């Protein structure tokens, strides 16, 4: 469904929301880091190339998106790229939320940790590591958080068996 006020694709967003503080900040910093963008359900999603997420998080933080609210992953198995990381960042000044998105390929997926930008991302990244098996480089304490330490497998992956003996 495409709603009348939705903007799909990078060009449409750059065209439709040129004055948006987050878009402006990302463009001023490094236009190449923005892989894709969309504006749907009144929510702006900026897809960042995987290697740049930490710097991108720092950029939107300086642009006024000061509060890290949530972060999680989606497994698009068997699609490609398989993993999607969604960071939800709130601005106390603009009373608005943006979503940063990173797409990762299968096979030991790893991405830079944003704990250097927001300490509070610590538990959220551990949870994604535990349940999806995505590694966060530079995380201070990347251990399982929900499952027991000796657990094998990552339960929220779509190919994780949900029935039968193990």
């Amino acid at each position, binding site marked *: *469904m495409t*709603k009348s006020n939705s903007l799909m694709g990078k060009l449409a967003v750059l065209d439709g929301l040129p004055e948006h503080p987050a878009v402006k900040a990302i463009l001023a910093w490094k236009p190449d880091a923005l892989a894709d963008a969309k504006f*749907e*359900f009144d*929510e702006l*999603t900026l897809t960042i190339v995987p290697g740049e997420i930490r710097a991108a998080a720092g950029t939107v933080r300086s642009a006024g998106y*000061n*509060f*890290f*609210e*949530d972060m*999680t992953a*989606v*497994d698009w198995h068997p699609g490609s790229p398989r993993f999607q990381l*969604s960071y*939800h960042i*709130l601005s*106390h000044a603009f*009373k*608005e*939320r943006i*979503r940063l998105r990173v797409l990762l390929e299968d096979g030991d997926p790893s991405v830079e940790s944003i704990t250097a930008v*927001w*300490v*509070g*991302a*610590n*538990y*959220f990244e551990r949870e994604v590591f535990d*349940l999806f*098996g995505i*590694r966060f480089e530079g995380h201070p*304490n*990347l*251990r*399982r*958080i*929900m*499952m*027991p*330490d*000796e657990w094998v497998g*990552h*339960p*929220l992956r779509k190919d994780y068996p*949900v029935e039968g003996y193990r």
Partner: protein
Amino acid sequence: MAGIVGTPIFEAPVAEGSRDQHMVLNMGPQHPATHGVLRLVVEIDGEIIVRLYPEIGYLHTGIEKTCEAKFYQQVVPLTDRINYLDPLSNNLCYCLAVEKLLDLEIPERAQWIRVMLTELSRLNSHLIWLGTHAMDIGALTVFLYTFREREEILRLFEAVAGQRMMTSYFRIGGLSMEPPIDFFDRVRTFIRTFGEKIDEYSNLLTGNPIFMNRLKGVGYLSAEDAIAFGVTGPPLRASGVDIDLRRDMPYSSYEKFQFKVPISHAGDTWARYEVRLIEMRESVKIIEQALDGMPGGPVKADAPKIVLPDREKMKTQMEALIHHFKIVTEGFDVPAGEVYQGIECGHGQVGYYVVSDGTAKPYRVHMRYPSFATLQALETMCKGRMIADLVAVIGSIDIVLGEIDR
């Protein structure tokens, strides 16, 4: 997968002289002051906390995974079980997220009843916090008073939803049914005297020198730290950050209500106590406004393929029976997309991230719950303080382990 290491119990450093000897203490997971199954590994130097490591996951039930196997409407009862002290806020947040995906218009009456019940639910949550927090400090009496009022709220929930705790009263597209005829009068009777009840708690605690000494200046959290750790709700406002999603990013008609958002700049346990007490008074005002201005009309959206028909219609009209059968057996398709809906519950900001692939079952549901993030700030709040203060601080951040572990 490499890099999965053992349980991080601190190695007690064996110092040369006995003066530097630290001890590692396990608090929980069965400790009454941890409000659930939270395990805290505390490294102490005498009575002083040097390091603190929360160990969670004892209550992990995989609700997010379960959601992927259910129809959209079947997820609603699961959300109650996450934060069982504030069940209606969970229902509301999930329903709002799915309604956003469906682009569904909710009747005004349903929105107002949602506001009224969510505020009652917030009172419920704050009453349990106040009772248990005071009990942890040693003021046992308050617990009896707060649970007296909580019982009344639970009776109201039972009247409206048929369930005391796991209400599941909000459904996708509105409410499950019209509230009973005398319901609003009962809420009004309860609310009329509730302000005095708050005075009563306040009289028991606010001037109490023992309570004050245990709370004042304890568990300090600066505004910068609170934002960095992702702390939300009353602890964030007690640190001087003026943000409340009900006022700043209104949902479900909150923009039509007048209320104040209490903040404090002290940032300590006492400030969190004061902020929550004032919040309860503001909730009473919101409920009064909702009762006074309650609009008429239906409580369910006009979407026969999504909302279950009334029982009466289902038994008399063929169309309604077909829709009922289809919704129950096949669910309803939700357009593909991803939404994030944030609301302010009793503990802080709740967020539901729902990803749909266009089928009748959610592709992914992720819940952001405030206690999960707030727990990260515990070490900062307790470091260098006495171990007895830990109990006061845990009580003041008001965690629910059900929502941390999910």
